[in-house]
């Protein structure tokens, strides 16, 4: 095994253009180092990108653009501000402090775990990912990039170089809720992110709902989103959204929980998430929290 520590983006892209199919990109390493130790991967080249400071920045200029080397800890501390609370909340549940200070959002995306916490939160903010190779650059919606269990459409010569989010407008609230057996150091049994925008009278005019750990990859439920738009979060519309989510998901039985349990928690999670979004948007009743 050979180690290449990229000292510039061009340098990294150069290595990928020649030997991309034999390369494992390593940023924080919190997933890759474990996969190496378990023998799950045995790349000919380990490409370290974690010293590329140009991949670490955050720009808010209309849209919000962040570099893939932004750490979970940065996000959990609220680097993106009050309008991206779901992203902060999701990052705060990725492992403990020791993994959050090292693990990166780009790594969470490219590792493409079905249970990746930040992905539902990124999805509800209409995340797009930019991939560069030495020859070209392309930007695609996150839901078209992560296509299956640990599978993305990243080409062997490509590097994830930016994540772009649509900055929410006024009267918008977002939240990430995670179901686990304990409240820390847990892989999600179900993760749910929601972002709702409201008219001044409290009618939902825009909805985004995304889930993790309910299928091969984190996903949005467009029918559930449609079920909430135009209403005021009445019990009937929450029930309709829950029915839509339950039609869209394909949960499995695993060591953490059964498929039936995963289905069982969805309606309650949607109710709780909707109330928190409403409250955070400044349109809900004050007793919504918790």
């Amino acid at each position, binding site marked *: *095994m*050979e*180690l290449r*520590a990229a000292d510039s983006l061009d340098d990294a892209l150069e290595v990928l253009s020649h030997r991309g199919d034999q390369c494992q990109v*390593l940023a924080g*390493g*919190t997933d890759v*180092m*474990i996969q*190496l*130790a378990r023998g799950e991967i045995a790349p000919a080249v*380990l490409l*370290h990108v*974690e010293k590329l400071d140009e991949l670490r920045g955050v720009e808010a200029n209309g849209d919000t653009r962040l570099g893939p080397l932004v750490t979970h800890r940065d996000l959990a501390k609220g680097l993106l501000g009050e309008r991206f609370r779901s992203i902060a909340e999701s990052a705060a549940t990725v*492992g*403990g*402090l*020791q*993994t959050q*200070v*090292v693990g990166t959002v780009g790594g969470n995306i490219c590792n493409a775990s079905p249970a990746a916490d930040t992905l539902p939160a990124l999805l509800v903010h209409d995340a797009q990912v930019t991939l560069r190779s030495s020859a070209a650059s392309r930007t695609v919606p996150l839901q078209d990039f992560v296509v299956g269990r640990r599978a993305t459409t990243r080409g062997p010569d490509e590097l994830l170089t930016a994540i772009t989010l649509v900055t929410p407008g006024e009267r918008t609230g977002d939240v990430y809720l995670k179901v686990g057996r304990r409240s*820390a*150091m847990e892989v999600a049994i179900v993760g749910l992110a929601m972002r709702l925008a409201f008219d001044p009278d409290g009618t939902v005019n825009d909805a985004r709902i995304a889930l993790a750990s309910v299928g091969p990859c984190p996903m949005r439920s467009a029918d559930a989103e449609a079920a909430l738009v135009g209403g005021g979060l009445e019990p009937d519309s929450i029930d309709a959204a829950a029915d839509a989510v339950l039609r869209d998901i394909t949960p499995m039985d695993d060591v953490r929980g059964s498929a039936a349990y995963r289905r069982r928690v969805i309606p309650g999670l949607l109710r709780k998430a909707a109330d928190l979004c409403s409250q955070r948007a400044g349109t809900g009743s004050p007793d919504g929290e918790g």
Partner: protein
Amino acid sequence: MEMTFTVNGTQAKVEIDPAETLLGVLRERLRLTGTKEGCNEGECGACTVLVDGLPVDSCIYSAAATGGRRVETVEGLTLDELGRDLQAAFVAAGGVQCGFCTPGFIATLVSVLRENEAPSEDDLRTALAGNICRCTGYSQILDAVAATVSRRNGR
């Protein structure tokens, strides 16, 4: 390949394999065995050390990525005043039972208390979520931190 870094204030130059972990370098190459190997997959925090002041699980931290950085282990941290205060408070409060998790707890706590001299109990519980004490001596550990905080802020 060769890697140079600073460990407990001293520069070290070691030969490493590309996929080697920082924990391997500390324990096997430098014989700094105060840092423990627990789960070896970033779940238990027994191997926590500070890299450029931040607590990391050294069992899943790339040795190669450590090049040029500053590492502090329990051996160095307990020469520092804050580390010494914590060590004494752990002893006094019974925060050490089998002792296997202790070096990792000390490392995380030094980093937390450097950043915030008076963390709330909630802050502490959150910061310590990645350090597991299998003797379940968490209450005594939190007592030791409380004693350290009040002693240091009382000065």
